[in-house]
């Protein structure tokens, strides 16, 4: 530890370990947080539903951005695949939709493309390709592409779908035109997809097909003149279509929708949504929640090098209080915990991390939150702070969306 270069390397490594990206299944940094998240286990709950149900299931899954949803869904995928099921996972905003402006049609196209890609070896893709052929003429006009209709095969078809979703995602001008053009044909696309799925001979009683549409929770709310949001349009108005595919599906939904006045309607249509709550760091009376803090400490532990893991204090933090403060400040929100660590390391030349470094990291993060809050929301925040509850109105929902209000769950909830 005497060599300054070693110290520097250690800090570099630590800095890069605290990067706010989702963990892959099997990552040693993964920490089971069930006990402090109100005993929620996605792999258990969502997975069990898929495995046990004889009917197709359509489940909603929600949580704050950066609370670990993707990490959990990737675990679920691995678990189910391990049991011989087929899982189509996709992060919708990566290649298919624009979170700034997304509608139901975009999601359906995304599902189509990923199913086609995944099942192309096993299933007969003719129904989907036929459907696509029927659309090509119109698509050519909108997207100005050159395709020879006679030559459509699976590869060309896949490319074509990729082109469509890419245009929907990145070309605001074409987006609307494509939607308008495809909208009347969504029913036939669903039928084609179902025929395609049914063709797959590897699927059976034992092997089920599950689609996981991740990152739909990032869709930014747009409110129409009539007061309805695009969230409501997608998840409520289109719930029949969202449930029309003959496979199991898990949709991620914005947490603000789960806690809106539509909660009952969502429950009626999809069953009780699974929500990944934050890790509890304080009791409702303000006392520390030791279990939650321990989990957060474990999360930190698993991201630092093994030789320091056992002695976080004083090797990494100058005192137990500093570590405690950092965990409390995160509010049990893992992405902020990781951000805070990253910022604190940035402000540290020599280990251990000092109280001042954590304080400065906290100041920086507080500044970000302060700037996310609009003037009239301060009063609302004050009330939430006192009541520990929220009302189902737009202000509260936007505070949930901006993570200025976090949700916790008790075991007995």
């Amino acid at each position, binding site marked *: 530890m005497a060599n300054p270069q070693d110290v520097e390397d250690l*800090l*570099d490594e630590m*800095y*890069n370990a605290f*990067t*706010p990206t989702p963990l892959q299944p099997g990552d040693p940094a993964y920490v089971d947080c069930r006990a402090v998240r109100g005993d929620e286990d996605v792999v258990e709950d969502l997975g069990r539903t898929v495995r046990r149900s004889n009917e197709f299931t359509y489940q909603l899954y929600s949580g704050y*951005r*950066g609370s670990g949803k993707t990490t959990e869904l990737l675990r679920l995928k691995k678990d189910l695949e391990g049991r011989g099921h087929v899982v189509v996972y996709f992060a919708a*905003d*990566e290649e298919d939709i*624009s*979170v*700034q*402006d997304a509608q139901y049609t975009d999601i359906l196209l995304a599902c189509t493309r990923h199913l086609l890609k995944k099942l192309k070896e096993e299933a007969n893709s003719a129904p989907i390709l036929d459907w696509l052929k029927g659309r090509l003429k119109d698509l050519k006009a909108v997207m100005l592409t050159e395709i020879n209709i006679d030559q459509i095969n699976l590869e060309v078809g896949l490319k074509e779908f990729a082109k469509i979703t890419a245009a929907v*995602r*990145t070309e*605001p001008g074409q987006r609307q035109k494509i939607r308008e053009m495809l909208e009347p044909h969504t029913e036939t696309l669903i039928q084609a997809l179902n025929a395609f799925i049914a063709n797959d001979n590897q699927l059976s009683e034992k092997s089920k097909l599950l689609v996981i549409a991740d990152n739909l929770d*990032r869709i*930014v*709310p*747009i*409110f129409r003149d009539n007061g309805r*949001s695009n969230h409501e349009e997608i998840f409520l108005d289109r719930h029949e279509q969202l449930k029309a595919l003959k496979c199991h599906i898990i949709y991620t939904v914005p947490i603000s929708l789960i806690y809106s006045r539509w909660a009952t309607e969502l429950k009626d249509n999809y069953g009780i949504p699974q929500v990944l709550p934050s890790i509890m760091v304080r009791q409702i009376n303000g006392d520390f929640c030791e279990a939650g803090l321990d989990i957060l400490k474990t999360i930190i532990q698993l991201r630092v090098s093994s030789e320091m893991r056992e002695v976080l204090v004083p090797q990494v933090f*100058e005192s137990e209080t500093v570590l405690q403060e950092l965990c409390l400040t995160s509010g049990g929100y893992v*992405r902020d915990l990781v*951000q805070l660590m*990253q*910022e604190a*390391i*940035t*402000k*540290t*030349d020599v280990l251990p991390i*000092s*109280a*001042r470094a954590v304080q400065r990291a906290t100041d*920086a993060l507080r*500044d*970000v939150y302060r*700037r*996310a809050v*609009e*003037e*009239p929301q301060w009063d609302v925040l004050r009330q939430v702070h006192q009541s520990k509850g929220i009302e189902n109105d*737009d202000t509260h929902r*936007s505070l949930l969306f*901006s*993570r200025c209000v976090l949700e916790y769950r008790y075991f007995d909830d």
Partner: protein
Amino acid sequence: MAIQPLEDAFEQLNDQYPEVFGELDGWNFDAEEVLSDLLRALRRKKGFGLFFVQCNSSQAERVMTSIRERLPQKRLQQFDLNQQSETLYEEMLERYQQEPFSVACITTGVEQMLYGYEDTKRLVGWTSQEIYNYSWKGVPPLLSHLNRQREVFEANLPIALVFLVHSFVIDYFIQRAPDFFDWRSGFFKFTESAANLQKFSQELVDGDYQEYNSLTTDQRVEKILEIKDKILQLDLVDSEQRSSLLREQGRLFQSGGETNQALDCYERSIVENPNNHKAWNNKGILLRNLKRYEEALRSCERCLEIQSEYVDGLFNRGAVLTGLECYTEALESYNCVLIINPFHLNSIFAQSDLFASLGRYGEAIIGYDKILKIKPEDYYIWLRRGYALFKIGRNEAAIESYDKALEVKHDDYFTWGKRGDVLLKIGRNEEAIESYNKALEIKHDYHFAWGKRGDALLKLGRNEEAIESYDKTLEIKPDYYGWTKRGDSLRSLGRNEEAIESYDKALEIKPDYFYTWIGKGDSLRSLGRKEESVKSYDQALKITPDDPYVWTGKGFSLYELGKHKEASDCFARIAEILPIYKYSWNNQGYLNLAQDSYGLQPIFEKPLLIRQPPYCSSSTANADINLERYQKSLALFETALQLDPEFTIAWANHSFPAYYLQQYQTALQSCNRALELDPENQEDMNEVIYTNRGCILLQLQNPTAALQDFTSALTLAPHLDEAYIGKGTALFQLGRYSEANDSFSQALSLNHPLAQANLDLVGQQLLETNS
């Protein structure tokens, strides 16, 4: 770990990097610490990382210099963005492939890119509208580009992408692109030193409002954001400076028409410093612009409580009081300004305008003259002065003033129009038309000038051209005035049906325009549609109950309908309204007796015609008359004659009741007076006067003179049957029966009802004479 005393640490740092980091330009200990953090993070980052640095442009330069100097192993590449930066990734990749670099700094262009977006406007102020009202259609291309390319950046460009941007951009990212911002590897914030902050703040306040007005939207947003940035950095205790900056921000908003945002700023400014009299005044001005005068006045008064001699405040109070219609107080307020600064032109101007609107044009002109001494090139003042002069009837001077205005600004159509108005008023109609033509050359669709030009043409009797002019004005802007005047022109041409159509158009637009109803009434009357015309006049009278012209029109129509009593009532009403209007008296008298006048269709233009006794042998006038009615009429004619002793027809009429009241001498004199006034029969009524005088002379037992008068009457009007009867009677009385017989035969051929009886009498007399 103990925190080092700041001074020590500061000393150390200065020792360490004396050449770069002195206290120059407000670079300070805090800044140095933040810089160290940033450098550390950049040094440690492996792979792609996104860094946000909040700083101003000079700080950005320093940061980049420091990265170059202190991280020499990291190659730095600077990128500028522009509005269309949608190819950032491609550009970076290309450069990276040519020559790898590890730090990419984006310093300029990000703000500019955001200024134009709708939600930027939301972020520049303090209170926001509902967040959800924002339409996401307009996401800046850069953001969607970066969001889209996230994975490819990560996969192909293992660089640190550093945004060195103003606080506003950070706000934008936090509120508008939280996912993008969440993805950061670090956020660093450089603040301004206290001294610099003070200095920059000072430079930002009390800007020239005219200049603000001429800013483009983007420039304005930029300036507002600059101020907001300073406000956010200023210490909370420095409320005076914060107050000044908030006021300034408000002024900028106001210059861009963002009233609500401006008001919010002023109010915040006042909360920060309740003694900021300028902020109170700005609030007052804004409220005045919103016509919320009561509130505005409170603001002004608060301003003046703090600073009683604040000229701008006094001026604004004047304007607010004007808005409240407290003119005396307003004038006083302007006076206060002028005591402090006798050359406060805005006050002189406002005061003069106020005088003008109070009808005190003389005082207004004095004010305008004062301004013109200082600013002789202000055409606007010349124009107003011209109008004031026009209003007090100094028409020549008004024209001169307008000419002055036109010297300064030759192509001001409004002035040409106003100049035309003066000329029109003083009857220089051709010149008026020229002036309007000028106005119309400059602004072909100046409908007001087309209309007034029509008026001038109408006055010149150039009715067809007038109609064309009105058609133009109506083409541009169909208004009731144009339609009405067009109707008037058509009526002048006797095209009454078309006129009525035109009037009806006017009435569609404005059903209660007095002159339209009059014009329509007159046209209807001309067309003999008497009942309708009466209705039209009645509509006019609903609007203006005391207009003698309308009562006259109605009286005429009623008279033509044979409703003499009602017609007479109309003239009685006129006599009440306008006692000096002689016709009302004459007409009343006439109408009271018209039923007794000879002739089936008596008309106003002719005097009442005396009816002779049934038999030429009898010498007395009809005895069965309503004395009271005759006496009343006699008095009415006398009133008319008092108003105008040379009122021929009234003299002629006067003889009628005098005759029946057997005041033959009076009657005779009246006839004589009438004939003296118009010996040449220019008024075309002497045949009646001669006939009447003949009858009077018969009563005065002077058949010889009577015979002469009847003969004169028949020379003028060979078909006047009553004169034949009179002539016959005179001849009969003179014993010239044969001639009498001829005269009565003439009367008979003209179907006079008394002719046969008289012929019988003469026949008997002839028989007696012959036998």
